């Protein structure tokens, strides 16, 4: 340690052989008040967390809205006697637009929060991101492949719904395992289970199952995360000094 043992706690004790002027001309080398230090640390910790934290409410919220409205539109277009008329092409465009929007929201949010963060966790996140990218490139190509085989709209819709939802569920569970995020794992397990039920239900009502149980599950996930964050924000009753993250 190069710490000068003669200088302690900022109660400026000049080193006997050193200059009497402060060795650092910066104003912030002034002695610090201890209560002020605690507040400073807490404020900076909050700032760093708020700036670098990937917020599950934003991600689950965006995808939840996309699934609820998108699958609902697809269901309206698929059933024989819908409460609201929905042309097939309109439903497809609505769903596609919502999914693209949710993807953009996700990409922008993650890019902003993780900008300039490097190292182990950043590498993990990058690998996880590639898993999503490649999986959904595969889903897109699968739609193309089915179209080339003249598959019926029911077949395309079923395969797309089940494969993409299974991938979402699986990757949420994997993410939960990687980051020790129980809520994320539970959401993934829920989506996978809902997908199994939807596959058994079959067309056209599988779309309704995915809208309410799948998309609804994501919105509940966002709400659960919100509650969890609010609970964490409540200041502890014993003392108000910040704790060190491990």
């Amino acid at each position, binding site marked *: 340690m190069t710490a000068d043992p003669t200088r302690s706690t*900022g109660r400026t004790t000049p080193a006997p052989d050193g200059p009497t002027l402060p060795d650092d001309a*910066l104003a912030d080398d002034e002695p*610090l008040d201890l209560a002020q*230090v605690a507040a*400073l640390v807490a404020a*900076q910790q909050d700032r*760093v967390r708020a700036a670098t934290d990937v917020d599950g409410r934003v991600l689950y919220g965006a995808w939840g809205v996309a699934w609820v409205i998108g699958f609902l539109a697809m269901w309206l277009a698929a059933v024989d006697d819908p409460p609201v008329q929905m042309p097939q092409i309109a439903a497809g465009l609505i769903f596609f637009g919502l999914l693209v929007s949710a993807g953009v929201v996700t990409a922008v949010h993650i890019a902003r929060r993780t900008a300039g*963060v*490097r190292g182990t966790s950043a590498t993990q996140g990058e690998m996880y991101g590639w898993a999503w990218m490649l999986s959904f490139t595969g889903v897109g190509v699968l739609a193309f492949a089915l179209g080339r085989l003249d598959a019926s709209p029911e077949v395309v819709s079923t395969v797309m719904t089940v494969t993409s939802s299974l991938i979402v569920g699986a990757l949420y569970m994997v993410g939960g395992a990687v980051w020790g995020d129980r809520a994320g794992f539970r959401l993934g397990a829920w989506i996978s289970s809902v997908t199994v039920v939807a596959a058994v239900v079959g067309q056209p009502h599988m779309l309704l199952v995915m809208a309410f149980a799948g998309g609804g599950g994501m919105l509940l996930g966002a709400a659960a995360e919100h509650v969890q964050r609010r609970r964490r924000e409540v200041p502890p009753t014993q003392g108000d000094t910040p704790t060190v993250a*491990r």
Partner: protein
Amino acid sequence: MAGTPGDLDPLIHTQARLRIMTTLTALPDGSRLTFPRLQALLDATAGNLSTHLRKLEDAGYVETIKGHQGRVPSTQVGATRAGRSAFENYMTQLRALLTPPQDLTSPDDGTAATTAPATTTPAQEPR
């Protein structure tokens, strides 16, 4: 490392370096920040930040990795193991100093300082 409980690490106990260490230790272990992002999170000038980082790096609290992002040189800064434990020690001591004493009659720092030498000197004093 630190001797008495009131002996807060002088390397950390300045506003600038305290904020740097707080920022770097708020990230998960093994994570680093690029210099510009760290600068933004601290509202610091580049020169000021470099000066303080050098001191922390000399103490082994901070690690600077110089690399390249394509052709642009990029510097990444992270807290070392030693830096994390120094910061934890600092916070532990700070909490101890901020916690009001349980027993108000127990001697504080001032009396402890005057009574402590008395236990060691008598042996040499008789003459």
